[in-house]
């Protein structure tokens, strides 16, 4: 039986799970939850599944996972453990991912969906988080590495990528971070990368279209 993901299409955290599943070339049974405008995640029926009333929720192997990092770890362990990376190098970025939810993630929900938050504090914390990530990625590049926690992509990158890439949705500009820009390109160039609203696919990766063939079709 396929794992079942309770999902909201616009959620950065749900996207982390959808993205890793795609990169691992594994299918999930995706169930849409009407987060907005329906607030379905706060209904009695949803709360029996997850009393915390949060998304995503992943049902797999007879368990119900409600922590996004747990879901990423489970997917990696089950399909390709190389994505787990070196635990001591990866863990700080899973911690950063939680801070990003609260800074850049909240700023985005505030600006787009009118969520309640202190927008000034959220954006300021978001800038501090981005500067920390930029400094780290710059240092990694001096050693010839592009990803957060080693020479190849790991769940550290998947956990941090969505909120960083969607920062402009919350009014936080990404222009000042050249190393982050190159890292985002590397993530978006991974085989089987899938996009979400606000993160476009890289059209440069597709060849120039053959318009002559199209007009004959």
């Amino acid at each position, binding site marked *: 039986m396929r794992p079942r993901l309770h999902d909201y299409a616009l959620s950065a955290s749900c996207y982390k799970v959808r993205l890793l599943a795609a990169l691992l070339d594994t299918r999930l049974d995706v169930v849409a939850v009407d987060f907005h405008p329906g607030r379905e995640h706060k209904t009695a029926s949803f709360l029996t599944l997850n009393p915390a009333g949060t998304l995503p929720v992943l049902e797999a192997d007879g368990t119900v996972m409600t922590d996004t990092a747990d879901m990423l770890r489970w997917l990696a362990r089950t399909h390709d453990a190389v994505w787990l990376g070196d635990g001591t190098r990866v863990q700080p970025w899973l911690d950063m991912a939680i801070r990003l939810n609260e800074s850049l993630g909240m700023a985005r929900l505030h600006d787009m969906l009118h969520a309640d938050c202190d927008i000034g504090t959220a954006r300021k914390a978001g800038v501090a988080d981005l500067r920390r990530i930029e*400094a780290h990625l710059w240092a990694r590049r001096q050693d010839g590495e592009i990803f957060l926690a080693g020479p190849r992509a790991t769940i550290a990158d998947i956990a941090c990528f969505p909120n960083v890439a969607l920062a402009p949705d919350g009014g936080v500009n990404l222009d000042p971070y*050249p190393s982050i*820009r190159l890292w985002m390109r590397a993530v978006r160039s991974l085989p089987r990368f899938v996009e979400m609203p606000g993160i476009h696919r890289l059209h440069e990766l597709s060849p120039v279209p053959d318009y002559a063939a199209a007009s004959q079709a």
Partner: protein
Amino acid sequence: MIEGWTALALSADLPPGVAVPGRLRGEDLVIWRSASGRLRAWGDRCPHRGMRLSHGFVRGETLACIYHGWTYDGTGACTLIPAHPDLEPPKSIRTQGYDCREAAGVIFAAAEGTGAALPDPGSLAPVRSLQMEGTTDAVARAAGMGTLADGMVRGTVDLDGAVAVALFLQTSGAGMTTVHALADRAPLAVSDWLERIREIVEG
């Protein structure tokens, strides 16, 4: 009135196939590098519906706007409008050009037709670009490296031994300065030092 060249990015931060935004004397620019490595700087605005070209995509020797795929070649002329693939786009559809040069691992831009010489930072290696909330004067003061000439300050910093440093200071927004740093050694120490400078500038 500042004439001449403004540093906008480090070469290492703009590999082939990438487009980035830049800011030159209050104007928004796109700087991009083609597949063959050729650099161009244009106004960051597609003539079609005003979408930022810095969000666009590079294919070969062209940059296309992400909105409708309007494609521009190295001269800035529009060569393809995907909604009308058989149409030869009118010659009047073109991007706004700026001069763009690369030297010492730094990318510079200037108004088209500038005759000024490129600034010379000496034989230093590029280190890092980072943005600070403060004026170029405030940054120069915090760095303790004298007054700006050609958008640059130079000096020696004691970071466990003397390090020769050059900082190109670019106004990158209202009250914002982007520092493009070069040094003769110790890049990690220079990066840490830049972050300390930022803390001083930002109070």
